[in-house]
């Protein structure tokens, strides 16, 4: 555990000395702010123009994160792209693997490091929650549940991004692989519904990362959604560890 934390800290520090961090963060907060203002204005207008409108203020974050998660789908692979691919390219991965640390510790350490970077991004959006407390009457537990869903989805995105980073030594290719994989898991439900093949459509819908976020957006904790995200993250990390391990016998 200590080793994992050391690797994570190292990743975090090196991230904040890299210009990529600031490009990603500035882009994220700029878009996040724009989206928030757009939705806030739309809510305020709808409520003011519809007599007795029954619109829950807390549902604002549900709609907000439905849009922002698509932005993260493109941004988070940029955070994960150097984690393993840069190490492979520079040859430091082999060196790292010769150290007395396990492959799991390497991967989990890097994952934890990038997850902390993501956590900082999400923490910045709590300012918008504060704004809603000033202008409306939000339900704190509902919003907290929505944010828990955002963390689960983000963690899943990061796991896929880390896996993509492990299969290539080229960062650009790593980003592309990550985005493509995430798009597949985000849109699989949509494509399956176009084909419309009963049980296959149900299975594909279950695999969709987007479909499991819906309950969190409504302030609901659902066992099947939590289990899905946890198993998705574990499987993806497992695959990443196996890919890292394969460097020893290739």
């Amino acid at each position, binding site marked *: 555990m200590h080793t994992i934390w050391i690797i994570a800290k190292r990743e975090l520090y090196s991230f904040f000395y890299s210009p990529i961090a600031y490009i990603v963060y500035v882009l994220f*907060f700029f878009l996040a702010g724009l989206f928030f203002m757009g939705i806030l204005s739309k809510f305020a207008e709808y409520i003011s123009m*519809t007599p007795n409108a029954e619109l829950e203020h807390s549902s604002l974050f549900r709609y907000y994160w439905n849009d922002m998660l698509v932005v993260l789908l493109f941004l988070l692979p940029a955070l994960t792209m150097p984690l393993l691919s840069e190490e492979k390219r520079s040859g430091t991965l082999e060196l790292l693997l010769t150290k007395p640390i396990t492959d799991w510790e390497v991967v989990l350490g890097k994952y934890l490091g990038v997850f902390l970077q993501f956590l900082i991004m999400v923490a910045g959006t709590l300012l918008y929650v504060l704004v809603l407390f000033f202008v409306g009457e939000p*339900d704190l537990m509902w919003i907290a549940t929505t944010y828990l869903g955002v963390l689960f989805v983000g963690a899943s995105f990061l796991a896929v991004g880390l896996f993509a980073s492990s299969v290539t030594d080229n960062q650009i290719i790593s980003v592309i692989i990550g985005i493509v994989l995430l798009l597949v898991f985000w849109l699989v439900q949509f494509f399956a519904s176009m084909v419309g093949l009963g049980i296959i459509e149900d299975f594909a819908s*279950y695999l969709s990362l987007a479909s499991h976020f819906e309950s969190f957006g*409504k*302030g609901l*904790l659902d*066992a099947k959604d939590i*289990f899905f995200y946890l198993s998705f993250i574990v499987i993806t990390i*497992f695959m990443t560890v196996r890919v890292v391990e394969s460097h020893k016998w290739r």
Partner: protein
Amino acid sequence: MAERKKKPAPTKKHHDSHESTKMQSVEPVPESETVDIMPPQGNSSSWLANLRLTLEGFFGMRQTQHGMNFGILLISVLGIAILLNVIVSKHVVWQKDMTQRQLFSISEKSIQVLNRLNDKPIKAIAFFSYGTPDEQIQEARDLLDMYKRYYDNLEYEVLDPNTNPILAKEYKLTRDGVIGLSYEGKKELVSSTDEASVTNALVKLTSDKVYNICFVAGRSADLTLDNGYSGLQAYVERDNYTIESIFLLGKDTVPERCDILLLPSGDGDLQDTEVAALRNYFNNNGKALFLLNALDPVNNFAAVLNDFGITVDDSIIVDRQAQYYASPLSPILQEYNSEHVITRNVTPQMQLNTIRRVDIATDTTEGITTDWLLKSGAQSWAESSYDTLMNGEGGSASLDEDAGDVRGPVTVAVAAESNPGTPADSAAAPGAKTRIVVVGDNDFLRDDFIRNPMAYPNTDFFMNVINWLAEEEDLVAISPKDRQVAPIVLTASQGNVIAIIVVIVMPLIIVFFGLGLWLVRKRS
């Protein structure tokens, strides 16, 4: 021809690093040890042996073994994960609603109703026209998702009735923004996107009982079910009721097949025998909707309704400011009781004409619960003098409280319900209820009103009344969710300040932080 030189016999030579790399001849291998690569034709066992060797060589490679281990492990782990997810999704139905007001979970009562459906398929269609706000459609989706979570065999979709006219006709749709439910060949329309309405609709779909509405004719020759109220038939049949016309004149009892009575006023008042029949009917937990127009004789109606703490007087509502058809006698109603299930979701645009004041008696009647449903505006009043009104449609009438006028808002519709087992001399079975709704107008359900597409709130109100009157004893009341109606207080200047902070200031803070860190690093 020159003779070809014979090549010398091959001799053993030692390899020397300085020698050329020309291939050296080797000692021939004894025949017994040779293995032909290309077996002679027809020798399959040799070919198989070679294949075996090739495969052994391939699978013996370290990379292949590691790769296969990887693949097998991955498939095993994926298989276990899929299996566990299937088990959890099908058998672990755990869900916690974290919202303060439990907005996205259905009640135990609704779950009980779903359990009675015996896992048979239910189809739900939410009809929303193009242009409906997303929030409204999402509300319907959320509602149906709630039910789907507990009942797998519910399928729903959102459709535009304009592009699906055949389906709209099948459900006898008169407007959009409604949910159509279909179960075992029966159809039910739900006009309100709330749990109580959907669950009650499900109860009706699973119930074999068909409620019969009896239109009590005889008050006016020109106002009968077939002439003047014929449009109601389509609405009631759409919700699995039947309707017929009966006469109570000369009868001392209401026919047993009448689950609900519909009593419009007319040129003549109730006869004494009719009054006795009605009292007997209500003593046996009858249910009725009274439509008492202003200017009609209603003394005997009033006597029956007085038993339930409902007062009916000879007044007419006048409103010079908010009115339909430029007539002060067609006031726009301003207040709809949002606490009562009948009026909670009715669009506040009902169109009534020549309305009588109907109110709750000041002395409460024991064992009876009475609620107001509709009120006129504060600027209106109940005019007690018909003579004044006869002069030019109320144009010269004015509020005169000393003369008996009642200042607005004035109640024009009420609902009364007896508590189970009362009145004390009731012959009703314990748990049964008498329910009565009185509206001070009989025009709003006439054909010339309800044919107007904009008058759909009139028929919505009517069907809500019928559904409330028909409430079965096992249809327990489901409390409506306490929905939020507070505004988001955001002035233009506040909006600008917030926009500047979140869109510009926050990203700039990050830029400056990064620059600061870079400068510190550069100096050190």
